[in-house]
């Protein structure tokens, strides 16, 4: 499952006093893990609406007409607000367009930055605890079923092993997090000292220098740990840290920093030594410390690691891993059996849903049966969630409900329509010419719903067939390792406690990362004391604070200047690589897109008009709207008059019958005004919705500005290669 997020056939409208505005009209796209998808378009093209739908923060007057947004086994359009709380900010975060309106004016910056960390920290701890316990319990049960079906002694042993794992795993994480804290502190000490020493040598002191010196003192004390800066030097480090503060306060007045620098270099040497040390294997050490009565043997780290590793393997690990592997095999085997019977049930159920008139009772009974059957196919020990199985029951239910609701509603709508029609006819019969027409009755197509139900079933059957076909190729040894890592990850989530102090430290580091000077001072200020660019950086820092999975950037750099923009984009790119984030990047600036995007979707009037990799879009654009966008922006070599797009986007209360861009399009043909173009496939990755790609269409070249620019780009690259 490489796709993080799938959007299918999304349609969103807004109820306004003038009528229904169709903001998003039937768009679909996927977002893979670690990929950046850019959505480009003018304001009002529905790009922000799409992103807000993903985050579940659409305005109150919005109607989601159809579609699915699938994330982590859930359809985000159908889950409750309670469930959304767990996803929003934590898993999916958003950087908003307007930094003015997304910060609270009466709360200090520091508080706003740490608020999410503190809240989410607690929630994440709880959630990790629940996941860890639940998963271990499932694993335990599967182990017993797989290995010791009728052997109570063996079962007791397995239960004991699982309890053991639980116990020492937390010891391990505790040791490791203490080590990590010190290690990070030591690393930061080295960096910070080098930075400030450079400035002090140049005799430059700024307002934040005192804060930074205090920080260094604090960090160097923090870095004392058995495996980093050894406790033997504790007294000396403490003394140095203490004298550093007083020495710096004195030196600030005289601008003679020799003594301060000497202390700093000494502290740096300690920290450097600590960073260079090798880390022991804490996983094995946790086990040894918990279950062995003897103290740790005194030997070099390499030997110690080997010793501990042997110990844990002999005593516990090999048996546990063996059992876990068998448990995984057992559990997935059982699910596959269930799948086979479920496929039959699903195929049988087709008959029920293909009948002329569906029967409410029968349908609901079948639904219940199918939901239970599909639920039994979900492997509780599988780490990645099977989205289709999870969303099957709610989607089927909503379609069935729609069907039976529509039967009544259709009769009603027809009655209203008939009444209006009679009224109209009466008026016409009187010889008058009314200035209005009778609207078509709003009748839901029952056949379409039936078809949707069948599609849902077929999709699941195909999916199961694929799983069953690949079953023999699964490697359970690898999966077991992944399972143990998964458990470790959750355990570390439980121990990873976010206190106020940690949050503040992290916030200041984040502020530094996003390029805010003197973060210590800024931490205590209010939003109005920041300029626009600075505020945007704060907003970005807040979005990143909770360490999200998917980051939605809604024009994050539109209000910023080039250098800051470049910094912020680099920051987002780095974070993306570090944390394997998926990014949805919404913008109208094509220069930015070229830098960021792996794939680009160009939107116009609520539809995706062109879709492809960034190379496809920039070098082989095919849709006239993309051409227009490309030629309307100046670059450094543009001298001639810019080609602005004439006119304005259409009013989406009355969406045009044909291609929405046709009235502003120089290349429009007759058919553009009459029928909507389908998506034409240009290459495997590149699609465009324009009639120009139809085999019968005349051959049209892109505008001169675009051709010239592509030629210039090629020349520049060629020059560079030489």
């Amino acid at each position, binding site marked *: 499952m490489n796709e993080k997020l799938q959007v299918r056939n999304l349609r969103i409208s807004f109820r306004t006093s003038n009528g229904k505005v169709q903001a998003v009209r039937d768009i679909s796209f996927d977002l893979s893990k670690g990929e950046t998808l850019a959505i480009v378009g003018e304001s009002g093209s529905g790009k922000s609406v799409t992103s807000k739908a993903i985050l579940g923060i659409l305005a109150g007057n919005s109607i989601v007409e159809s579609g699915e947004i699938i994330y982590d086994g859930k359809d985000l359009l159908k889950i409750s607000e309670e469930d959304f709380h767990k996803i929003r900010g934590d898993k999916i975060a958003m950087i908003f367009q307007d930094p003015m309106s997304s910060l609270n004016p009466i709360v200090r910056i520091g508080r706003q930055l740490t608020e999410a960390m503190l809240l989410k920290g607690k929630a994440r701890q709880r959630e990790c605890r629940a996941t860890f316990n639940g998963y271990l319990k499932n694993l335990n049960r599967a182990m017993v079923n797989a290995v010791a079906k009728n052997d109570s002694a063996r079962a007791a042993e397995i239960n004991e092993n699982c309890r053991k794992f639980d116990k020492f795993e937390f010891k391990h994480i505790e040791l490791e997090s203490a080590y990590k804290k010190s290690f990070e502190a030591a690393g930061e000490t080295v960096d910070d000292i080098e930075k400030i020493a450079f400035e002090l040598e140049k005799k430059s002191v700024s307002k934040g220098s005192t804060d930074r010196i205090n920080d260094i003192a604090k960090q160097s004390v923090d870095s004392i740990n058995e495996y980093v800066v050894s406790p033997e030097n504790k007294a000396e480090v403490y003394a140095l840290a203490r004298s550093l503060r007083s020495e710096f306060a004195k030196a600030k007045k005289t601008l003679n920093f020799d003594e301060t620098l000497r202390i700093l270099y000494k502290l740096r040497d300690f920290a450097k030594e600590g960073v260079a040390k090798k880390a022991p294997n804490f996983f094995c050490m946790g086990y040894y410390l918990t279950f062995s009565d003897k103290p740790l043997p005194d030997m070099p780290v390499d030997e110690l690691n080997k010793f501990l590793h042997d110990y844990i393997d002999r005593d516990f690990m090999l048996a546990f891993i063996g059992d876990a592997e068998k448990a995984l095999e057992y559990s997935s085997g059982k699910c596959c059996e269930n799948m086979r019977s479920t496929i039959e049930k699903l195929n049988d159920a087709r008959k029920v849903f293909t009948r002329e008139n569906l029967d409410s009772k029968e349908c609901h009974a079948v639904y219940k049966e199918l939901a239970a059957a599909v639920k039994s196919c979900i492997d509780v020990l599988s780490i990645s969630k099977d989205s289709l199985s999870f969303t099957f029951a709610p989607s089927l239910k909503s379609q069935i409900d729609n069907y039976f609701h529509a039967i009544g509603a259709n009769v009603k709508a027809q009655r209203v329509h008939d009444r209006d029609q009679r009224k109209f006819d009466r008026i016409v019969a009187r010889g008058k010419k009314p200035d209005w027409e009778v609207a078509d009755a709003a009748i839901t197509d029952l056949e379409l719903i039936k078809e949707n139900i069948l599609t849902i079933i077929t999709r699941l059957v195909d999916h199961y067939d694929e799983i069953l076909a690949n079953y023999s190729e699964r490697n359970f040894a690898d999966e077991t390792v992944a399972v143990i890592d998964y458990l470790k990850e959750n355990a570390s989530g439980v121990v990873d406690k976010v206190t106020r102090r940690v949050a503040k430290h992290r916030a200041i580091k984040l502020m530094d990362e996003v390029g805010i000077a003197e973060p210590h001072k800024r931490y205590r200020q209010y939003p109005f004391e920041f300029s626009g660019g600075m505020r945007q950086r704060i907003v970005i820092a807040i979005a990143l604070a909770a360490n999200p999975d998917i980051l939605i950037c809604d024009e994050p750099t539109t209000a910023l200047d*080039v250098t800051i923009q470049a910094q912020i984009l680099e920051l987002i790119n780095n974070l993306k690589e570090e944390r394997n984030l998926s990014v949805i990047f919404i913008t109208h600036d094509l220069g930015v897109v070229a830098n960021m995007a792996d794939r680009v979707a160009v939107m116009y009037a609520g539809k995706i008009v062109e879709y492809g990799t960034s190379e496809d879009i920039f070098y082989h654009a095919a849709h006239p709207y993309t051409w227009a966008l490309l030629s309307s922006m100046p670059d*450094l070599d543009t001298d001639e008059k810019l080609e602005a797009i004439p006119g304005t986007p259409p009013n989406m209360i009355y969406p045009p019958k044909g291609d929405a861009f046709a009235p502003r399009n120089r290349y429009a043909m007759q058919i553009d005004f009459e029928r909507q173009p389908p998506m034409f496939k240009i290459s495997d990755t590149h699609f465009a919705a324009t009639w120009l790609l139809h085999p019968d269409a005349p051959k049209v070249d892109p505008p001169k500005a675009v051709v010239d620019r592509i030629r210039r780009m090629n020349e520049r690259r060629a020059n560079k290669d030489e």
Partner: protein
Amino acid sequence: MSDRETLLKVEHLCQYFRAGNFVTKAVDDVSFDIKKGEVFGLVGESGCGKTTTGRSIIKLYNITSGNVIFKGVRIAAGIQSYKDNIKKAKEEKIPNLSEYIAEQKKLIKEAKYDQKNCDKEYSKKRVAELKEKYEPLIAKASDPAEKDKLTKEYKEEVYKARRTKLVTQIQMIFQDPIASLDPRMTVREIIAEGLIIQGERNKNVIDQKVYEMLELVGLVPEHASRYPHEFSGGQRQRIGVARSIIMNPELIIADEPVSALDVSVQAQVINLLNDLRDRFGLTILFIAHDLSVVKYFSDRIGVMYYGKLVELADSDELFAHPLHPYTRSLLSAIPLPDPIYEKARKRIVYNPLAEHDYSVDKPSLREVSPGHFVQCNDAEYEKIMQELGGNH
């Protein structure tokens, strides 16, 4: 370019803001001049003082020190530099101290007078001109009806002239087209407001002028009775442009007029400003952070960094041979619509502490080649000259 008349001259402009004990030097010793008919671009990152410079020129702030000279008249002057001179002289105890102080105090007085009364002087001059023009005409007129008409016209003109300010010949276009238009005024009221303040009382004239302006910026007269919220972003910015050009300005200060707009609309507004410039020979001070747009639009460009002007040159020259390290870092950050090139692009980071050593030798703005100024000290100046010598 150099033979043209200088329209605006900014000399050692400083604008400090005081917050408690802390003084923010938003603009610190900036000097440049703008020739008639040219577009002068001012670029720099946010918070570097480019908007403050624009606002100081149009007298939205009282400047701390320096002079702003518009069409040969000093329209704004600050006194801080003279005060500092006095303080310094007292500390150093220079010979003939009292004379020096008296001289400086005289300068302060003059600066204060100019700062306050430049508009009055201008309107007085206008009134005197009118008097010269009309009095002989009225005296010559024999027909009493014609005399009455002339007298009435004369009075009307004097009424207007009294309200005319020199500064109104500088107009500003603001960044945010939503925030800079009053939501409770119709477009007609917004555009005509300046005219009315200046003393235009004839409704027909106002309407006619408003319609003319609307057509000029690509809107239609029917739009006059609508409210700003009924327009799209680009159209709103056009209203802002119409509002500023109705006063017949000589200089327009365009403070990021396109940054808040979509790409396609950006092109429309830039084309509009270009047309207007060709038609009326407008001079524009173009403040922006989008370097591609500035390059496309401006004749000369000044680069600002933390309140200081660090480089000033013709736009082609600046982009071809950037000399100041900050300019280089700025140019390296421009995104281009070219994915392969973009992914290989390396941004140059500018760290003033690492680049310069100003502990002894203070920098100043020096001319390194004709029309190309760079902020540097002696050592850097020599280095730059060597580099240039090698190139040419």
